[in-house]
């Protein structure tokens, strides 16, 4: 959580990320030409075609020149041109980004909400059987790798029961619109979302539970009960809200993990998110696209962190300005 002089440090962080974005893909062995055109032996890779491609991908210019061109273009908001998709990177991203944001955003909210509520209920009933069951379930489920959980769910619900869709983000060309489209999208979203939530709810739950146990020992809880607040109000409005603080701070870090987790889940459900796009871009060594994806992922995480910091100030009045 970037706390001191927030904005300046964010700019610095973004610059560091930009340079890493540029350098890392180029360090990877293999160049786009080979990656995109080499694989298909049927292609007549005539020398002229190769030279024209090199010019089009501006691979001939020295790295530093390319870097400056990249920064200048970025400044103008142009993310460059994807080799493989043969289209501006921004247009390609715009197609895939919403799906990933939908998936990871919803997953984060659900994980947080579910984790907090379960944590509160479990924390309040410390030691009793319900707490023990929830606890061991969270610890056990937390052990599942994303792709493993995803495959199992897909096999069970999709293949065996046939209740859930087998792939994709919506039923193609089913001519749906309005509400039925939304329903269809949600129907396709259920399994990937369920996978991410099942695997990623653990940390939220454990964190809330532990804070809840310590908070219930605080004096203001006794005041609340003395005020005659019903048990649920004490548990949620007083102890719950106080236990929310560490969850908000942890959510930032968890979101970064969530995105990497989503990479595998998207592949299992062939969900058209940034994960599948990144995997394809890596396979085809599509430098501009890889840079674009990394930058967007970085910005997403930074924005989420920034938003969470605002939420934290809202939730905890003791924090007046940037600590």
């Amino acid at each position: 959580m970037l706390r001191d002089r927030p904005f300046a440090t964010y700019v610095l962080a973004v610059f560091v990320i930009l340079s890493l974005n540029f350098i890392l893909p180029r360090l990877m062995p293999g160049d786009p030409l080979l990656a995109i055109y080499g694989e298909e032996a049927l292609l007549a890779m005539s020398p002229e075609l190769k030279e024209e491609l090199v010019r089009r991908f501006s691979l001939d210019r020295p790295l530093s020149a390319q870097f400056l061109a990249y920064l200048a273009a970025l400044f103008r908001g142009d993310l460059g041109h994807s080799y493989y998709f043969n289209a501006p990177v921004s247009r390609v991203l715009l197609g895939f980004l919403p799906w990933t944001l939908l998936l990871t955003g919803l997953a984060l909210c659900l994980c947080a909400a579910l984790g907090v509520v379960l944590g509160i209920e479990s924390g309040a009933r410390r030691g009793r059987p319900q707490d023990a069951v929830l606890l061991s379930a969270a610890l056990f489920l937390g052990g599942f790798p994303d792709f493993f959980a995803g495959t199992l769910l897909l096999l069970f619900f999709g293949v065996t029961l046939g209740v859930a869709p087998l792939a994709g983000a919506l039923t193609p060309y089913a001519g749906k619109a309005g509400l039925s489209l939304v329903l269809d999208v949600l129907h396709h979203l259920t399994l990937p979302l369920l996978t991410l939530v099942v695997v990623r709810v653990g940390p939220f739950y454990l964190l809330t539970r532990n804070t809840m146990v310590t908070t219930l020992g605080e004096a203001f809880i006794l005041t609340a009960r003395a005020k005659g607040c019903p048990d649920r109000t004490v548990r949620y409005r007083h102890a719950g809200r106080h236990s929310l603080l560490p969850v908000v701070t942890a959510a930032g870090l968890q979101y970064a993990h969530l995105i990497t987790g989503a990479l595998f889940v998207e592949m299992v459900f062939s969900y058209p998110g940034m994960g599948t796009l990144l995997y394809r871009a890596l396979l085809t060594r599509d430098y501009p696209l890889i840079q674009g994806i990394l930058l967007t992922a970085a910005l997403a995480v930074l924005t989420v962190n920034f938003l969470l910091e605002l939420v934290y100030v809202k939730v905890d009045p003791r924090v007046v300005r940037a600590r």
Partner: protein
Amino acid sequence: MRRFRCVSAGRFLFVTGTLLLALFALAGCQARKGADGGGAVYTVADPTGDWGFPSPFAHYPRGPGYIRMHFLFDTLVWKDEKGFVPALAESWQYLKDENAYVFRLRKDVTWHDGRKFTARDVVFTVDYLQKNRYQWTDVSIVTRAEAPDDYTVKLVLARPHAPFMNNFAATVPIIPEHVWQGVTQPEQFTDKRAAIGTGPFKFVDYNKEQGTYLYEANPNYYGGRPKVAQLRFVKINAEVVPAALRQKQVNAAQVPPEVVGDLEKEGFTVIKGAHDWVAKLMINHTRPPLDNPDFRRALAHAVDRQALVDTCLRGHGLPGGAGLLAPDNPWYNPQAELYPYDPATTAEILTGLGYVKKGQYFEKDGRVLELELLVSGEGVGVPGSPREREAEMIRSQLEKAGIKVNLRGLEAKTLDQRVGEWKFDLALSGHGGIGGDPEILNRVILGQSFLSARYDRSGELNELLKRQLSAMDPGERKGIVARIQEVYAREMPALPLYHPTWYWTHDGKVNLFYTYQGVGTGVPIPLNKLAFVR
């Protein structure tokens, strides 16, 4: 969020939970209805989904990309399961003296936007391709195109070129002059008009993210009215394709070999593909001891290709043809099979080369014979491509023959790069196209791509390869190609391991077939547009 309404948090979550479940069930049954929209819709599943906008210049340079495009655009000549058939050209003729082909065009062909198709479009196409670098096939072979009248066109070749019919006439899509006139960057030209062709289907929609395509039938197609009203391509992972077939969500798809038996029992039609793909053990013949042909022959004897097929492919494949072409390929020459599995011969050759066997491995002047075998974890993304399983088996076979092998797993593109830069001993790779025109041999023996053996040290081989291109007479060409395979087998610059068998399954609405020498230049996918209009 002035005050966190956590009093109702519990209730709020309970409500969203039930809402999600209800929606789950509701949409579930809805999806069921949508799938089987009657015979009108034909759906094909594809694990990758997105192959680019289906225009001749915008589709990605891969087989499936060409397939998506070929439903919309026609070629002068086309192929069915047996050979060449008329398409835009009713008949054609090769003028030996002028080294030119004359095509008489059909008169009743219209573009999807209703405009008449004439010879001018063909001439425009040839000129346009010369200027705009058509990536899918080499168009430089045609020097000039003339249209004496509206319905005949003459294409003059630079030199006698045997593969012309297959790689040009039956591959190059004819584009409408009135659309493409003045289009400078063809690969960026992706609005609806770019998809106007003369093919059996019209373009309706292409969604890059979802990896889906939607075509509708072209009622006045000269080759007959397509049997299905709509043709859809959807993205479904290979692992769940069998389930999609069983749940009637798709009509046709490529399926993994292991599940073929069950599907057949369940009433699906299974078609077995031509062995168009070859898995190869790339050998770095620029570095001793691999530069010595005898050593390479010793290696060839040490690899049990039949065992590879039986275990790693569970029998779904053919052992590699020593001359690169698969045993069931029309041009295959059985004499090229010089390497039966026989570790004893390997030992014999190695001792002949001065290696002495101490304990488990051969040694020469104190150093153990040790080679590094590169393999890529997820293979080349094609079913049956060589992965760790094959690498482990080859290693154990070579170790049994006395050669120490270290395995090294690399990411696919990294492996390709190291092979390209000769930074390897042995590597597992492979490519398709050997089911198409024998011209592929030139590309994978002399070509510069990392898939090619890049072996030009055998003068005889180089000479044969050049002659086969200009041998216009099929009989003569067949003899040359046979000889090429024998010389290649003797030189053995790269060891063909096996040819995986690919299976497609469909529900019988359209009886798909594998095209003779692959679709166009050699794409081994049984989605030939003719199947939809028969």
